[in-house]
C-alpha cells in the first residue's frame, strides 16, 4: 500500500506538507465517506422522516457556515502564499483571519444547535436527528481541532519559526484545514440542500 503513496514521476510536484498528514487525511475522508453513504441510504429507507426533519433545519445557518469555511480556507491559502514569499508575519496575519472566519462557523453552529435543541429535537428524537447531530458534531469537532492547529502555526509563524526554506508544517496544517472545508462542502448539500 505504501508503494502507492510514493511518487515515481520525477516531474510531479511533491505533496504539500508531510506525507503523514496525507495518510491521516485519507483515513479521515474514509471514515466520513461511510457516514455520508449511510446517511444517503438511510434517507432512502425513511423518506418521510427525513423530509419532515429537513423542514425544521436552520438552512440559513448551513449557508452562512459554508461561506465562513470557504472564506477561512481562502485565508489559509493566502497564508501559505505569504510564507512562500518569506513573509512570516503576513502568514500569521492571514491565519488569524482564517481563525476569525472559523469562529463565525463555531458561533453559528452553537446558535443552530441551541435553536434545534430548544425546539425539543435531540439525538434521540429519531434517525434523522441522530444522523444530523452525529454528522455535524463530528465535523464540528474536526473544525475545533483544525482551529487549534491553525492557532499554533499562526503563533509560531509570528515568532519567525517558518521561512521560505522551511514551511512544511504550514502546508500540513493548511492541508488539514482544506480537508475540513472539503468535508463541509459535501455535508452542506447532503443535509441542507437536497430534499
Amino acid at each position: 500500500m505504501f508503494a502507492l503513496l510514493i511518487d515515481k514521476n520525477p516531474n510531479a510536484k511533491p505533496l504539500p506538507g508531510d506525507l503523514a498528514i496525507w495518510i491521516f487525511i485519507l483515513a479521515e475522508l474514509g471514515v466520513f465517506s461511510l457516514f455520508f453513504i449511510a446517511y444517503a441510504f438511510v434517507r432512502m429507507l425513511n423518506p418521510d422522516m427525513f423530509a419532515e426533519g429537513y423542514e425544521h433545519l436552520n438552512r440559513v445557518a448551513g449557508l452562512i457556515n459554508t461561506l465562513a469555511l470557504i472564506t477561512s480556507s481562502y485565508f489559509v491559502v493566502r497564508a501559505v502564499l505569504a510564507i512562500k514569499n518569506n513573509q512570516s508575519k503576513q502568514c500569521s496575519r492571514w491565519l488569524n483571519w482564517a481563525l476569525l472566519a472559523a469562529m463565525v462557523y463555531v458561533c453559528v453552529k452553537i446558535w443552530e444547535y441551541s435553536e434545534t435543541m430548544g425546539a425539543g429535537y435531540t439525538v434521540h428524537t429519531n434517525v434523522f436527528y441522530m444522523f444530523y447531530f452525529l454528522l455535524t458534531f463530528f465535523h464540528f469537532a474536526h473544525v475545533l481541532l483544525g482551529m487549534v492547529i491553525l492557532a499554533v502555526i499562526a503563533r509560531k509563524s509570528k515568532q519567525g519559526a517558518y521561512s521560505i526554506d522551511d514551511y512544511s508544517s504550514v502546508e500540513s496544517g493548511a492541508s488539514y484545514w482544506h480537508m475540513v472545508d472539503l468535508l463541509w462542502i459535501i455535508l452542506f448539500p447532503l443535509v441542507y440542500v437536497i430534499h
Partner: protein
Amino acid sequence: MTNFLSQLNPVQRATLIWLMLVAATIVAALISLFLKSGLVLLLASVAILIFKGQMIVDHFMELRYVAKHWHRLMSAYCVVIGFFVILAYLMSMR
C-alpha cells in the same frame, strides 16, 4: 478555464477560485429554495458539489501538479460520494 487560471498570479487565482466557490454555494442554496425535491435538484446539487470539490483539491490543496495517483484519489472522492447519493435516490424510486 485551466489556461485562463494559469495566466493569473497565485493571489489572483486563489481570489477568483474563492469567488467561484462562494457563487456556487449561493446557487446551490437558491436552487434548493426554488426547486421542488426531485432528480433535477439532486443532479444539480451533486454537479455543484463535484465542481466545488475539484476546485478545492486542485487549487486550495494544490494537488493539481502532484503525482497523478494522489490527484486522482482526491478528485474521485466527491465523485464517489455523489454517485452513492444518486444511487440511493434512484433505488428509492423503484
